[in-house]
């Protein structure tokens, strides 16, 4: 309990973290370049599609997890992804906007709804929030189904145009006629989202979110407006998720109310817990592993859900830290074995 060793090197620690933060941009750039090379190697459209789907699911899942980490039991991720998809499709198809404007606008609209729902409800214990967000999602689904005009009714909206072409004169034209174009767009969206979430976690905002989790009464007592922070996280994450939803709509050219059912949120919850919610790499691992495993059952959604939920139960009972905690656990078990070994040695009468 009371081990206090003065750390002679202590000037280093916090400043060192700050220095590392200044470099983190480079890592994200590196990741972008690395994943950007994939299409050069991987020619199969099918695999590219799997990766693209993975990218926008990583956005859904990491933003979902961030909201969970603010202590709220979010059960309406599907609502905000859906708002993003429908809003951007309607802005493009009805109002004639460019996709490049409609996508961020859809994010803002979803963020606006998050603020509207968040202020009255985020102060409540997680469970109320779960009911309200789930109900909100299903209310929206009802509205999409019921009002053929402009939402297309139960059958959804067809023939959604892809993103508008971008031309850099004399250099290249990206007209989204090829999978690789979508691949780069999804990749860019994911990297930007991950960078924003990373900064949200590492910056002063992350410090405050963590403090609220560690002790909300004390946080309040030093002047932190907890509601503002929770709403901020909720709105930013919902907005980012909605932009991914907008991408989804213009990538698959078709959306229907079925795409945005509570099952989407369930999947995200499963990715989060299976990967491990403690760290944000965990969610990514969970999403990637489960989506790859899910490909085996592609087309048999019951078996897929069966496997996912079975996985969830097993992880909860036997590996509460999720897959991401596995390496640490293994090395710890390893070192404990070594210790035992050493003890045996010492006790040897020789």
């Amino acid at each position, binding site marked *: 309990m009371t081990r206090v060793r003065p750390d002679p090197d202590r000037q280093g620690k916090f400043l060192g973290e700050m220095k590392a933060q200044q470099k983190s941009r480079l890592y994200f750039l590196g990741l972008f370049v690395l994943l950007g090379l994939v299409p050069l190697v991987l020619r199969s459209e099918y695999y590219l599609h799997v990766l693209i789907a993975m990218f926008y699911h990583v956005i859904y899942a990491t933003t979902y997890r961030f909201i969970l980490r603010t202590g709220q039991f979010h059960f309406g991720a599907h609502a905000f992804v859906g708002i993003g998809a429908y809003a951007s499709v309607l802005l493009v198809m009805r109002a004639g906007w460019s996709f490049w404007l409609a996508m961020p606008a859809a994010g803002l609209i979803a963020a606006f709804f998050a603020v509207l729902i968040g202020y009255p409800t985020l102060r409540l214990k997680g469970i109320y929030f779960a009911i309200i967000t789930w109900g909100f999602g299903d*209310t929206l689904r009802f509205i999409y189904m019921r009002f053929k005009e402009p939402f297309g009714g139960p059958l959804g909206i067809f023939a959604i145009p892809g993103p508008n072409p971008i031309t850099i004169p004399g250099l290249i034209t990206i007209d989204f006629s090829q999978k690789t174009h979508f691949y780069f767009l999804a990749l860019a969206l994911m990297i930007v989202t991950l960078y924003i979430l990373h900064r949200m976690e590492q910056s002063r905002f992350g410090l405050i979110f963590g403090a609220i989790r560690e002790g909300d009464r004390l946080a309040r007592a030093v002047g932190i407006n907890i509601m503002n922070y929770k709403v901020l996280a909720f709105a930013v994450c919902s907005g980012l998720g909605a932009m991914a939803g907008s991408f989804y709509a213009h990538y698959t050219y078709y959306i229907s109310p079925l795409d945005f059912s509570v099952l989407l949120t369930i999947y995200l919850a499963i990715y989060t817990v299976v990967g491990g919610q403690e760290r944000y790499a965990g969610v990514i691992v969970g999403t990637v592993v489960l989506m790859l495993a899910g490909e085996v059952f592609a087309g048999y959604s019951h078996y897929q859900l069966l496997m996912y939920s079975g996985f969830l139960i097993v992880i909860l009972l036997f590996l509460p830290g999720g897959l991401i905690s596995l390496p640490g656990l293994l090395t710890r078990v390893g070192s404990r074995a070594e210790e035992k070994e050493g003890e045996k040695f010492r006790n040897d009468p020789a």
Partner: protein
Amino acid sequence: MEITELIQITVNAISIGAIYALLALGLTLLFGIMDILFFAHGAMYMLGAYAAYYLCTKLGLNYFVALPIGVILIGLIGVVMEKGLFRPIRNDHVAIIFLAIGLNWFLESTGFVVFGLRPKPVASVFTGQAHFFGATISWERAVVVLIGLLAVLALYFFLMKTRWGLGMRAFAEDPLTAELQGISNDTVCSLGFLIGCGLAALAGLLVAPIFILTPTMGSHAVLISLLVIGLGGLGSIPGALISAFIIGIIESFGTSYLGADITWGMIFIFVIIFLIIRPTGIMGVVRE
């Protein structure tokens, strides 16, 4: 004419409300006592309905024999789940919710695999209609209302008058004191799951002759139950009863005058707006 129409709609409201109340009863009980939002409630309800199918349609048992068998069987499944799955992580609230979610969809997808997609028929035991004051109600619905009412009364009696019931209510207040009163927390939890899952199964068995049985019926029921107990106030049994009938009334009037789908949309919007303004529901206490 006017007045009989009104009576008819009210009778419908009561019959709808009774089903919703029955659906929500076990869920709100488990929440009130153990602070668990037991999503797998829906799956237990679905299993109850399928139990009716297998016991009555397949095995040819009398409906009223099948009823207690199904309830006890699924109640026991609940106890096993509590002992095997929930007890080890009882103190981790977030994990418990995720576990219940996982179980619900695990059982639902198992349902798809085992029961198949095709809706299953359960023959109605009662045919014909009862008449009073010019309104009609089918006998099968009247039976649901009646048994539902009996279940509520029995639960009330159990909670208020028996030693076990007192122990459970003491547990809800403060687990430590409950232990001192001579009923171990483990017993309370097992009992809670037995009753909660039994009530879910009872609801499933009762609606089996009326509704169409599919594996997804559980998730749908959970959402309705959540709206009911959310509106009523989480954990409050009287609240759940009141709100079930409020929703029953809206649905009954709505479907008569506006059509079914718009009515459900309205109920959603009504409950959500109500909860956003008053998140504690009708009878609830805020737990911030």
